[in-house]
């Protein structure tokens, strides 16, 4: 079954469809068809009566314009005017329509037959048409001029066809212009291409007219292009190279063959062995005991603040470092926390790191076991504060709601229903702590603590101090806060050096004393390695370069 595609919406329609089922666009070009034309309702007066007579040489298209129906004669028209419909009769025999020709809709109309007309009264509108209504006599009907002009009857028309001596009618200018040019040669456009001559419709015969439906919207089979590209040899080489590159992306490249022992391997192992050897020798022999460093101003300030704490002071202790740096941080904080415990301070432990709470427990058990601090009595571990700086701010704003329970899921804070743990009795806000101490290894975390906590401590009548125990890398970041006026950090201890200095101050703290000697020995060995190794390697490298490279380097 054939199908045709709509030029407008592109959808498929049956081949016999004239309009698209979807968008109602016309599928078949509109061509004038004599069979579909209706009889002319009127003939202009100027039209010669012999128009039906085809003159010699008249083409078919013009004949098609003629009505197939016979033109009513003057008498029949007069009968119509005289109310021929009053009787229900049709005007004449020539215009009589047989019962077979009557369409259904017309057959159903009342009054079609005389019997039915008698049986059923005429409707009002029909009475008006037929003049049965009792209306005042209307004015005489004025017949137009063209209608009053006598028309030839059928016999006359037939006779006129046979009269060859009749002169052909004169066509008006507009009709003359659209006469077919069947016999005329094909015109040529200005571009030299033959112009299209319309073959159908009212514009049939005209050349150079714009088509009703442009060619580009007419459905046609898409052209077929050859699949094989024409490439040159050079292009082929480039394409193969690109293809190889793309394919190699997904392929695992074999690792280059390792040489047995390279100079880099030797150097790396040498450095590692020297460092390990130095530290092991120092730890095993214990001969690297060195005097503890002198304390500095910021360390002394921490010592002073702790020494001034009242008995059973409430201290908030934050453990914000990672397990990887626990050796340094434990050594730095041991002497300071030991001092706090000596003062009998109640400790509240928090952390903004997920591993911080366990590190805090480990620190208490490992380094401060001599104080016999008990969880829930002497100290309370409130656990992890999620949310980073936001969580820290929330804790500063409302510590009871941010961390309501201990690490052992015990209600920590004092309330009406609960007395609260001893470490938190009398504590409602952050300002109720006598001291805030943050043990931190990261500069950003240290900055977050200072920036979030310090505004709370600036309120009047606040005696809470903020001190820090940091790794050595945080020292440059903390010092501006310490040197500010007023101080935003009231004191800090940095690294193993600071912890050892604090141990020097208090005379306690075993861990920094143990670490201090091997630590210094390892630092010196590392410095010598870098210095001597760098000088030797750079000298060897300079000597091993060819003279040409040396000249380029100088340039």
């Amino acid at each position, binding site marked *: 079954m054939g199908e045709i595609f709509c030029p407008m919406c592109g959808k498929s329609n049956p081949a016999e469809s004239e309009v698209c089922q979807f968008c109602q666009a016309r599928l078949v070009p509109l061509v004038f068809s004599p069979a579909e034309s209706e009889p002319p309702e009127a003939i202009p007066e100027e039209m010669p009566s012999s128009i039906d007579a085809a003159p010699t040489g008249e083409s078919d298209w013009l004949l098609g314009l003629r009505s197939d129906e016979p033109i009513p004669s003057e008498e029949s028209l007069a009968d119509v005017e005289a109310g021929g419909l009053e009787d229900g009769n049709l005007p004449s025999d020539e215009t009589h329509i047989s019962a077979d020709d009557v369409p259904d809709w017309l057959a159903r109309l009342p009054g079609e037959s005389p019997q039915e007309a008698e049986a059923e009264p005429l409707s009002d509108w029909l009475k008006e048409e037929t003049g049965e209504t009792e209306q005042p006599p209307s004015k005489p009907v004025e017949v137009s001029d063209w209608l009053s002009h006598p028309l030839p009857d059928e016999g006359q028309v037939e006779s006129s066809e046979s009269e060859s001596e009749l002169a052909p009618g004169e066509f008006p200018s507009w009709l003359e212009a659209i006469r077919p040019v069947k016999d005329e040669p094909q015109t040529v456009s200005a571009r030299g291409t033959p112009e299209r001559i319309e073959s159908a419709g009212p514009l049939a015969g005209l050349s150079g007219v714009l088509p009703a439906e442009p060619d580009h919207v007419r459905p046609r089979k898409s052209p077929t292009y050859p699949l094989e590209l024409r490439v040159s040899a050079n292009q082929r080489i480039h394409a193969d190279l690109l293809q190889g590159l793309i394919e190699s992306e997904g392929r695992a490249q074999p690792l280059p063959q390792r040489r047995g022992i390279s100079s880099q391997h030797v*150097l790396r192992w040498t*450095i*590692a062995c020297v*460092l390990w050897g130095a530290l092991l020798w120092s730890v095993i022999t214990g001969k*690297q005991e*060195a*005097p503890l460093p002198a304390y500095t101003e910021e360390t002394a300030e921490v010592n002073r603040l702790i020494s001034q704490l009242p008995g059973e002071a409430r201290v908030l202790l934050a453990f914000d470092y*990672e*397990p*990887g*740096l*626990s*050796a340094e941080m434990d050594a730095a904080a041991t002497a300071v926390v030991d001092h706090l415990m000596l003062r009998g301070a109640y400790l509240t432990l928090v952390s903004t790191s*997920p*591993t911080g*709470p*366990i590190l805090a*427990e*480990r620190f208490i*058990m490992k380094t401060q076991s001599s104080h016999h601090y008990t*969880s829930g009595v002497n100290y309370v*571990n409130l656990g992890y504060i999620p*949310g980073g700086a*936001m*969580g820290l701010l*929330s804790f500063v*704003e*409302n510590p009871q*709601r*941010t961390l309501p329970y201990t*690490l*052992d899921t015990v209600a920590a804070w004092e309330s009406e229903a609960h007395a609260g743990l001893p470490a938190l009795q009398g504590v409602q806000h952050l300002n109720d702590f006598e001291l805030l101490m943050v043990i931190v290894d990261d500069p950003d975390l240290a*900055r977050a603590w200072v920036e979030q906590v310090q*505004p709370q401590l600036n309120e009047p009548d606040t005696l809470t101090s903020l001190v820090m125990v940091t790794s*050595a890398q945080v*020292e*440059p*970041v903390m*010092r*501006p806060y310490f040197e500010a006026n007023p101080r935003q950090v009231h004191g800090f201890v940095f*690294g193993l*050096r600071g912890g050892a200095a604090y141990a020097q101050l208090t005379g306690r703290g075993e861990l920094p004393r143990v670490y201090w000697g091997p*630590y*210094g*020995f*390892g*630092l*010196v060995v*590392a*410095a010598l*390695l*870098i*210095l001597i*190794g*760098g000088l030797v*390697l*750079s000298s*060897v*490298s*300079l000597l091993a370069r060819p003279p040409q490279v040396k000249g380029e380097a100088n340039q």
Partner: protein
Amino acid sequence: MKATFYVAIAMAIGLIVLLGYFLHLDLLANLRVVLLEWAVILSAVALLVGTANLFYVHWRKFTTTQPNGFYSAVLIISFVITLGVVGWFGPTHAYSMWIFNNIQVPIEGSLMALLTVLLAFAGVGLFRRKPNLMSIIFIGTAVLILFATGPLFGINLPGISELRAWIAQVPAVAGARGILLGVALGTIATGLRVLMGADRPYGG
């Protein structure tokens, strides 16, 4: 429409929290506390989701027998054991502390020790790779700080402690102050851009 809704929420919440700093009104303070609590809860949930996603990724890698799936199996086994022990006995129980003290702390400490060796190796190779003035200054400063930080076998070199203190308190602090000022200005600019809807880190 959605984007406008997101921007409106972000701006409103940001303004409420910001105004809470400056205006001491009970309404603003209460709203601020509630919003911060929501943020804390969401952060905690995000941590749980991240942990579950980690487990799922490695589980899929293990079950589909991808390369290095053995390491995923090790992670899954460690994850399940740790979760079981800590969840059953509690985070401060002796078993939980044993896992932490004898597995996690040594592993992370070993990584830091490796970093020490690699830094020393990089310092040795720096002169050979880039023998220029900046390398000399860099290595010279590092060596000086290393010498002056430790006890140096009990030898007290005159002036070295003062030089170390000057480096740590003047050039280093100057750089740190510059960084802090830059961070502060950047934070203000970023906050204003988020408040005005120019930056939309929340999407939309």
